[in-house]
């Protein structure tokens, strides 16, 4: 990689030990992907949830924080999507473990470094906002694909350590989606129907992700709907990332770099147009099974629910009770939970026997340990990504619409 005089000085340690570690680390990653040089970034989003970073990650962050300030000067503005734990909820979910205390250690260390902790889910449009075409260093895969696809900012998957490095160097290696040629569509997809709910949009993302299965694939998707809701597109995109490691997509006539087919292909042939049908989506959702079986837990999470969805849940639960053998978990950012309390949704959910949980997502807050603690198996969720991850944690997931999840929670079994 070609290094500027400033980057060489960082490498020599002239700008502190943190920057020296960071630029050397970034150089190794950049050379792995044949990056020609670095690109400056203004905004950095760091994934540091407590389960993911582990004890070694926490120690690493604390060691950086313990350096004298002159040794750890930042060169970018950073937010951590560390969302902590809902202490009250986790006394039930994972008794005997002080997750709130553990999370506070990381929040404290991040704060000492000058990194703001947010409690929102995807810090894509609620906390920081890069501009169209701006290079940025975002960490969560849903955030990255959102930035590349729907904002038109430029980013690779910059996972936790690499965004921590970008915080100290103010730059990231220039490869992948920082380059024009990588942003062109590689595959053409057409939806011949309009998905009815976010689980179906998630299934669309999962089907495409499984089929393409490469970080370097960029699907261009033609949708039947005039303009899908952002939340729908978000569910599709985060499942492209979850099932296929895909970091960018185009939606023709919707996303900023895709006004038409000519724009996304730059005039090059990208093969036959594949069609995804409603049957494909139904087959995918049905393939998880579970109809008629007792449902142990319903987790509405990933992304955390917004206030509109919380209102939908409250309305669906009105005058009903969650089955005594089923646990209903509804995840929301802390700010949304507060709003839900003020509006009355929180009480409606609690009166029905549901648990409104603030903090990080279900899957990223020791879901395996929670399953073991409660002996749970059958899980229902409106998030196809939660189904994907939690299968590996020993759950038997059934993804479905929010309505079907709630109806099943009340019935105590997976309804068709």
């Amino acid at each position: 990689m070609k290094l500027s005089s400033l980057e060489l000085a960082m490498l020599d340690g002239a700008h502190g030990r943190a920057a020296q570690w960071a630029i050397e680390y970034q150089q190794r990653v950049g050379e792995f992907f044949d990056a020609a040089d670095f690109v400056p970034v203004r905004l950095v989003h760091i994934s540091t949830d407590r389960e993911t970073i582990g004890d070694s990650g926490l120690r690493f962050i604390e060691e950086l924080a313990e350096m004298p300030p002159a040794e750890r000067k930042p060169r970018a503005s950073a937010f951590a999507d560390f969302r902590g734990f809902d202490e009250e909820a986790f006394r039930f979910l994972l008794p005997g473990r002080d997750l709130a205390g553990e999370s506070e250690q990381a929040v404290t260390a991040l704060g000492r470094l000058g990194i703001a902790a947010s409690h929102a889910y995807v810090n894509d449009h609620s906390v920081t906002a890069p501009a169209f075409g701006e290079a940025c260093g975002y960490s969560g895969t849903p955030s990255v694909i959102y930035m590349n696809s729907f904002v038109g900012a430029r980013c690779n998957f910059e996972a936790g350590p690499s965004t921590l490095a970008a915080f100290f160097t103010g730059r990231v290696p220039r490869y992948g989606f920082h380059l024009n040629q990588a942003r062109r569509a590689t595959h053409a997809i057409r939806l011949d129907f309009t998905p009815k709910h976010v689980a179906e949009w998630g299934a669309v993302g999962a089907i495409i992700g499984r089929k393409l299965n490469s970080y370097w694939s960029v699907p261009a998707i033609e949708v039947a709907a005039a303009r899908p809701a952002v939340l729908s597109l978000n569910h599709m995109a985060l499942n492209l990332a979850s099932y296929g490691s895909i970091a960018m997509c185009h939606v023709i006539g919707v996303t900023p770099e895709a006004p038409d087919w000519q724009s996304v292909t730059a005039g090059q042939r990208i093969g036959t147009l594949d069609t995804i049908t409603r049957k494909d989506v139904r087959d995918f959702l049905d393939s998880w099974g579970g109809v008629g079986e007792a449902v142990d837990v319903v987790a509405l999470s990933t992304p955390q629910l917004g206030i509109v969805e919380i209102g939908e849940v409250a309305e669906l639960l009105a005058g009903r009770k969650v089955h005594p053998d089923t646990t209903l978990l509804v995840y929301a950012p802390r700010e949304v939970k507060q709003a839900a309390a003020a509006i009355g949704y929180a009480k409606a959910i609690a009166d029905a026997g549901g648990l409104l949980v603030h903090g990080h997502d279900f899957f990223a807050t020791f879901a395996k340990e929670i399953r073991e603690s409660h002996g749970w198996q059958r899980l229902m969720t409106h998030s196809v990504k939660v189904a994907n991850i939690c299968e590996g944690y020993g759950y038997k997931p059934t993804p479905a619409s929010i309505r079907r999840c709630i109806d099943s929670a009340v019935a105590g079994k997976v309804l068709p």
Partner: protein
Amino acid sequence: MSGPDAGVAIRGHVGIGPAVRGIALVAADDFSTRYDLDRDRGVFSRPSHKLFGESYVGRILVLNAAKGGVASAWMLRDMVTMEKAPLALLLNDANPVMAQGAAFANLPLMDRFEGDITQAVRTGDLLYVDPAGGVVTIERRNGIDG
């Protein structure tokens, strides 16, 4: 059985981490530390994964593509610290998360081989992985060479 003979070198892109020698664990399946592993026990925990139930600790893990979210970047280092890590990772296609994780953990990683690495190597083969040189050498075939 098919694949290159013992002693054959397989070229890939220059990788990350130190050179190592060890026994391969192979499947034509994808890989994520969060989605596929029970990291406490050091085994594959995803029922639909071809290596379900297999211990990966200390093995040279040979799989198709990196998948899933950002977790692997932190988790690989934690797995190394907990002595619950593979010895090296050989993938047909790594993504940035896996490369960043390998660099953070100083765990050997190579990808972009001249052919499908999951077909060229068999479980039980003794491999020498040289990321700096971009070469994997099959030093002994499982059950064939002494």
